[in-house]
């Protein structure tokens, strides 16, 4: 999936919005078409996407059940206090399908976009808002640094935890308050080391002539290409279809 990251991010947002706009089943056909097309294009194995749904099954079931039984309407079946209504059935299925679409749609974004593309895309999408004081470049820089240091800090957490355990620290106490207090020997050194890293990194960046986003070039320029415009086109048609469906049906 070699689309401009901007297109991907914007597409995902449009997709999410579309899900909340529609209120009937018919447009779902359009969505399935759209999602299927996107998955096909992205060359992500469908199984991978489905697997991401697994941990969410409980919440999906809960959504289905509660909506089914607790939506007032025409009774079709009841047992004791449980009342299944036709509106409820409709509502439950509708909500679950929407949730599934939502999860699939967003997971495609994360699966098909590298972290660098993501930060680049966000920076460029935010660029127009610079005039009203949104520090687009700075935010993207921060995210890059965050992604760069997540593995480092993870390692460090492990190290400090072991070092304190060697000194007899207990991170497995049952009591909540005790446990909270026991995190002090872990979190204080971790924070202080993060501060130190921030200091040193700032100096290293300065030494490499970093001076903010101004006059900066990029090695990999992201340019809108034909396929990106086509994608925007498809997206617009799709959105138009969704909005239209709301009026027509």
């Amino acid at each position, binding site marked *: 999936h070699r689309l401009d990251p901007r297109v991907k991010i914007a597409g995902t*947002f449009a997709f*999410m919005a579309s899900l*909340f706009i529609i209120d009937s089943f018919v447009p779902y056909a359009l969505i399935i078409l759209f999602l299927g097309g996107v998955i096909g294009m992205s060359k992500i194995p469908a199984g991978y996407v489905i697997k*991401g749904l697994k941990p969410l099954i409980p*919440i999906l079931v*809960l*959504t289905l059940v*509660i*909506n089914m039984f*607790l939506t007032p309407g025409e009774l079709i079946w009841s047992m004791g206090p449980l009342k299944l209504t036709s509106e409820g059935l409709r*509502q439950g299925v*509708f*909500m679950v399908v929407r*949730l599934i679409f*939502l*999860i699939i749609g*967003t*997971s495609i*974004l*994360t699966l098909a976009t590298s972290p660098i593309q*993501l930060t680049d895309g966000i920076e460029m999408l935010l660029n127009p808002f610079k005039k009203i004081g949104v*520090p687009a470049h700075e*935010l993207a*820089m*921060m*995210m*890059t*640094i*965050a*992604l*760069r*240091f*997540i593995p*480092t*800090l*993870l390692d460090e*957490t492990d190290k400090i935890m072991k070092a304190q355990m060697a000194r007899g620290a207990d991170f497995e106490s*049952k009591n*909540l*308050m005790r*446990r*909270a*207090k026991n*995190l*002090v020997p872990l*979190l*204080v050194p971790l*924070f*202080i080391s*993060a*501060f*130190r*890293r*921030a*200091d040193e*990194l*700032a100096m290293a*960046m300065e030494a490499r002539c*970093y001076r*903010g986003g101004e006059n900066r070039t990029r090695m990999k320029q992201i340019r809108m290409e034909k396929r990106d415009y086509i994608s925007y086109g498809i997206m617009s048609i799709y959105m138009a279809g969704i909005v239209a469906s709301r009026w027509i049906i």
Partner: protein
Amino acid sequence: MKIKQITLLGLMMAAICIGTMSIMIPMPATGGYVNIGDSVIFMTSILFGPAAGLIAGGIGSALADLLSGYAHWAPFTLVIKGLEGLVVGLLMKKGLSKGRMLTSTLVGACLMVTGYLFAGAFMEGSMLVALESVPGNIFQGVASMAIAVPVSIAISKTSYVRDNMLSRN
């Protein structure tokens, strides 16, 4: 924006992200897990102010959602945790007393619980389904306060923070 603020906020984002994703504390009381992401947001806000809390809290937590397969929550998280960080930071502006830390993190925790309730209701189409998240989130909030306050006090006493308190905005 100074370079040091950028790097510091980047590191705090990483810390929040890790706190959310991988420092999990099993809670025998509920059978669930509590993560320390909110604690790290509280600490960031307490030590570095509202802007830091807003930016690092929001983006750091949203990153955790993106990276752990809950991408559909990311936009809501961005707003909820961002506000959480902002509010705690604003309430801490007058100085670092223990009482103030407790009240402001309490407000932050309440904001988080209600935020997720409404976001859940919006996404799952029913307030009732979303209610399911409330007990866990309340627990999460309380645990986060219990962790954030002693750690913030301990960190604020170290010379590093004393020397760098200027970075509070």
